[in-house]
């Protein structure tokens, strides 16, 4: 008898329907699986057979053929186990076909029949809803995640026996999940008030957060660059529902959702080590195309410490995603587009020993410093909007009494700045000052005569390049937004010039 059950796989961060078709007929006994399967899926046959045996379902000695359709796309992972088992049981006539119509099955089987956690439940449950399914049967451990999708009953099952019972009885009632299960991530973040001093860096961080600008921090070892970077997500406003969902999807696909977390509410903060590979940074993978760090930090911060130590090709690979806010990964196994709407925070030392321009400590010569800076390409530097020095902090300052503004307070200011930007960019593709490109810069960031004169002066005196002009305008506009000013004032431009991007000639050795 033939039966067909709906399951799904993930491509990029969206679900793709997979039909599991099973036929039981007379012939040489055996179980054959077809449909362009990777080995993890092929091994499913043994898992399903054993799980069924241990659930008390005996498989008759007949010829069983399982096909995963569409048969021309490569199938990966273990998420089809449950669907294969259900399809087989249906073929064996254990329940009528009508029982499994408009139901999607997702989950991995253990040999004892338990249904185990899988990756990517959220996008697949969304797909089920789009396909008009009424029910999506998912592993118990993924239940919280599946429940985010409204308009479809996501039922968590613990084992194959329970699944069978539910199918037969048609009882897809959901247990009331107590709030403890669908808990949001707790706000256990560090706070800005813990940082004493470092006023310049803090201000630059505020500007970066307010305009969604990329920030470069330069400073000697131990000056608290990492400490500040870790606190930047805490001053960004809460993610919107839409943003949360997108971030959760990415984490779901990667299997990185924290235990018991349904929806990611905190903005992600990723700080990969500098030995990272290109694929790990932008996404890729041999068998299945997976999101990289730049997508994992979507709507949050990507912190790159010691950027001079990061392989050059990795840094260069970031250029396009930073510009386009998404990344398209093409592999033999398939293509995927991942969002890459992240704020880049980079940190580096001013020279190899880290102490320039403190001549009593720095032992580098001019050539060494030049070579050190040369490790970062100019196009990459161009992607950075703000650059600030993080000076070394004296001991008494670290232990001092007074503390600065709290993250909460700063976040309010940032939120107001975001609101101003939302108003400004209504009806355009932009959302933040940092997004504005090309000729639109001068369109959106108009300045008065006095301000223009100042900019001209700055160009002459400070040897600025033409490309820094737009950046200065962007930062100045953000400074004005932070102060809720309608127009860009002279003081905002001065601030922007102070945090202007470095250029090659900068280190005046």
């Amino acid at each position, binding site marked *: 008898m033939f039966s067909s059950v709906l399951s799904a796989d993930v491509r990029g961060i969206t679900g793709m329907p997979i039909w599991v078709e099973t036929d039981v007929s007379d012939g040489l006994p055996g179980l054959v699986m077809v449909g362009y399967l990777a080995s993890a899926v092929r091994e499913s046959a043994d898992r399903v057979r054993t799980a069924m045996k241990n659930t008390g379902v005996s498989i008759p000695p007949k010829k069983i053929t399982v096909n995963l359709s569409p048969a021309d796309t490569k199938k990966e992972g273990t998420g089809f186990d449950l669907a294969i088992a259900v399809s087989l049981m249906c073929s064996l006539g254990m329940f009528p076909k009508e029982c499994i119509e408009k139901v999607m099955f997702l989950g991995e089987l253990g040999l004892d029949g338990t249904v185990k956690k899988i990756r990517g439940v959220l996008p697949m449950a969304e797909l089920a809803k789009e396909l008009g399914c009424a029910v999506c049967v998912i592993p118990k451990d993924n239940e919280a995640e599946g429940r985010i999708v409204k308009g479809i009953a996501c039922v968590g099952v613990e084992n194959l026996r329970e699944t069978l019972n539910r199918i037969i009885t048609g009882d897809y009632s959901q247990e009331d999940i107590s709030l403890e299960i669908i808990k949001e991530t707790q706000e256990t973040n560090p706070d800005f008030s813990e940082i004493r001093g470092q006023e*310049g860096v803090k201000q630059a961080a505020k500007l970066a957060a307010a305009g969604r600008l990329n920030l470069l921090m330069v400073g000697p070892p131990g000056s608290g660059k990492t400490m500040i970077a870790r606190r930047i997500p805490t001053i960004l406003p809460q993610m919107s529902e839409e943003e949360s969902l997108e971030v959760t999807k990415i984490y779901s696909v990667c299997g990185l959702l924290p235990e018991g977390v349904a929806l990611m509410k905190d903005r992600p903060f990723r700080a990969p080590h500098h030995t990272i590979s290109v694929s790990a940074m932008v996404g890729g993978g041999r068998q299945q195309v997976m999101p990289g760090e730049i997508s994992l930090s979507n709507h949050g911060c990507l912190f790159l410490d010691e950027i001079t130590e990061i392989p050059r090709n990795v840094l260069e690979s970031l250029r396009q995603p930073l510009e386009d806010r998404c990344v398209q990964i093409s592999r033999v196994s398939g293509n995927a587009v991942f969002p890459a709407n992240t704020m880049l925070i980079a940190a580096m030392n001013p020279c190899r020993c880290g102490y320039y321009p403190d001549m009593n400590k720095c032992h580098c010569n001019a050539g060494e410093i030049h070579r050190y800076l040369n490790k970062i390409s100019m196009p990459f530097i161009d992607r950075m909007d703000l650059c600030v020095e993080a000076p070394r902090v004296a001991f008494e300052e670290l232990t001092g009494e007074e503390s600065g503004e709290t993250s909460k307070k700063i976040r309010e200011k940032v939120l107001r700045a975001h609101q101003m930007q939302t108003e400004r960019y209504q009806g355009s593709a932009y959302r933040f000052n940092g997004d504005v490109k090309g000729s639109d810069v001068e369109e959106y960031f108009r300045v008065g005569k006095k301000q223009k004169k100042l900019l001209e002066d700055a160009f002459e005196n400070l040897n600025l390049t033409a490309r820094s002009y737009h950046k200065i305008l962007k930062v100045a506009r953000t400074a004005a937004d932070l102060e809720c000013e309608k127009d860009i004032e002279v003081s905002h431009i*001065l601030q922007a010039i102070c945090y202007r991007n470095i250029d090659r000639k*900068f280190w005046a*050795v």
Partner: protein
Amino acid sequence: MKKYINKELPEGIRYISRSEKEFPEKLLELSDCPDGIYVRGKLPDPKKKTVAIVGARMCSAYGRATASYFARVLAANDVQIISGLALGIDGAAHEGALMAGGATFAVMAGDVSVCYPRGHIELYEQMRKTGGILSEEPCGCPPLPRLFPKRNRLISILSDVVLVVEAKEKSGSLITADFAAEQGRDLFAVPGRLEDELSKGCNELISQGAGIAISPERMLEIMGEKVKKSDNSESFSENVLARQENMVYSCLSLQPKTLEDLCKATKLSITSVTESVMLLQLQGLVKEIGRNRYVRSV
């Protein structure tokens, strides 16, 4: 050497052999006097006094300002400044001399037609017109490391006085100082704090008997020159500045200050400090060295 001499020299470069009248007499004092010398621009005027200003390539902002100041005052008093066009002190000395409109000369380690280091191309071009670039090495010779100490003996012999501005304990400038002592030139060193790495070499020279360069005027007196002009840079009155900028300016010195330092010293908000410091920088009163490190510009 001959094959280069017979070859046609690039335009603007002259070769002066030791038999020629023009050949600097001072060079003949050398036991290993070169056969000839390549010149781009002019040769130092033998009737005028010449001071060599040398020092560390990786110098501090203070050192740079000091070198520039000494060169400026000396050049304004018709003293020729000679140095090696290197980064740091050398470059600052040339710059100072040019600022005062004086004649300044560079002795290169390699080819005179090649500006080394590249970063000093502007200085090189200016000096080519108003002063001169000298070398004993033929055209096409790269600036090899071994040529630098050899070049230093020319810097000291061509001068009447050698001034070391900043030098670490082991510095190439000390080689020039040794040559100066051997060649019987007067040696001066700018004193510094005991704890500063960049002053250790200078302090050592002083302890060995070098003159203490407390001011360019005093140096002129010792050299037997009359002080005609003192520092001719426009004296700047702090009164013209707004109160806030004045506060920030008064906190600045030749030691680099961070935004953090300025915030603490002035008790102003970070936004006011950045604004003031940028205004000062645009007025040319403040210089930025490294990222967000500010010094007074002299």
